[in-house]
């Protein structure tokens, strides 16, 4: 893989991360990160939808009438999201039940429209695919970090398995119920951004 292609794939993981640098998709980062499992499935779903909608829009980019390009993008994204939902409902019913509303909300995830407008409309299908995968993974990574912090401190478990031994609870330890509420997700994201910027000085404004 040439360096430029590699960069398309790797850049969104840190330097151009959609959540902590471009500030896109924050809303879903709040909604699904109370537990690790839904966050992971959400991350994978967004990655799949993003990669394929990028490819489709990139294939169509020379035919799309400029005046209705946003509508075309929306239709493609919406169709893909519905297909993902249908597939999950058929093959991973319990996860589908857990995520139900949030799958539909992938359509409104700003990362999708952002990448389609900024990248897929002007690049080749393969580059767009890499960009979609890269951004999807960047998004998933942040979701996972937030979810791990919130589930561990808020419920004392990870992926649904209890991590904090019951003897701690007997000794007076309590789960922090505040971690489960959406505002804490925002604060955790804020902390990640803080750490991220203090490591990567180039990002500081």
């Amino acid at each position, binding site marked *: 893989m040439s360096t430029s292609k590699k960069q398309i794939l790797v850049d969104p993981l840190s330097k151009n991360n959609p959540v902590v640098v471009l500030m896109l998709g924050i809303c879903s980062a709040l909604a699904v990160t109370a537990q690790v499992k839904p966050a992971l499935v959400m991350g994978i779903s967004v990655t799949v939808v993003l990669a394929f909608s990028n490819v489709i829009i990139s294939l169509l980019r020379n035919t799309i009438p400029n*005046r209705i390009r946003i509508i*075309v993008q929306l239709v493609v994204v919406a*169709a893909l999201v519905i297909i993902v939902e249908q597939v999950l409902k058929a093959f991973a019913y319990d996860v589908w039940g857990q995520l139900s509303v949030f799958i539909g909300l992938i359509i409104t995830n700003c990362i999708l429209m952002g990448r389609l407008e900024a990248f897929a409309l002007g690049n080749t299908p393969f580059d767009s695919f890499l960009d979609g995968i890269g951004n999807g993974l960047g998004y998933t990574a942040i979701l996972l970090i937030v979810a791990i912090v919130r589930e561990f401190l808020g419920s004392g478990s990870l992926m649904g398995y209890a991590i904090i031994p019951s003897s701690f609870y007997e000794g007076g330890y309590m789960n922090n119920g505040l971690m489960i509420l959406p505002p804490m997700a925002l604060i955790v994201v804020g902390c990640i951004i803080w750490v991220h910027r203090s490591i990567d000085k180039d990002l500081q404004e």
Partner: protein
Amino acid sequence: MNKNSNTYTFIYASVMVILVAAALALTNGLLKEKHNKNSEIDKMTQILRSIKVEADKNNAENLFEQNIKSAYILNSAGQVVNKSPESAFSVEISKEVIKPLEERQLPVYEAQLEGKTLYILPVYGAGLWGPIWGYISLESDRNTIFAVSFSHSGETPGLGAEITTEPFQAPFSGKVLYKDGDFRSIAVLKSGQKSDSQDAVDAISGGTITSKGVEDMLLACLGAYKAFFEQVEAENKEE
């Protein structure tokens, strides 16, 4: 060809919409059978959980057949109006609860577990973000709760969604619906509170509205079965 002309835009949009519609219809058509199967199995699992039988998607159908001996539909006067298990299974509770009481179809599942007869009743109500529902199994006295299972579609994970967990559901076992000869249902109260007039379980802290939803759901849905509950006393008197 001029890509900015109205004709081009119009044709492009039309073709795109037709193609997308076809693709979605195709996906749905191909997966429909699997979806129905999944939701049936899910329903069986939930019903089984209400009599403390844990099933997964592989053995749900077998366990359901073994444990659930019959199912029928009652009217609000407690009379059996339909004896077919299939129609009882396919009653959609969400549509029944909005009908006037006299017109409602009330499904009952009868289970045999370790020689005991248990009655399983479906309930359906509103949580904070969306519907909540569940199955309540009663002992043969049609008064004491054997166990419950609740589900929800979109309650907050870690708060309202806790109604599906063991710590919330286990205390329901052994609670009674009737006190002093009157139907009282079960209260869901903040821990520390007590109710003298009815049996109560602890609510979820931080999940007040969902807990209240469970309480209202039990009162409304089980209330419709009053005639069915009171048949037992009548039958006992005859003997």
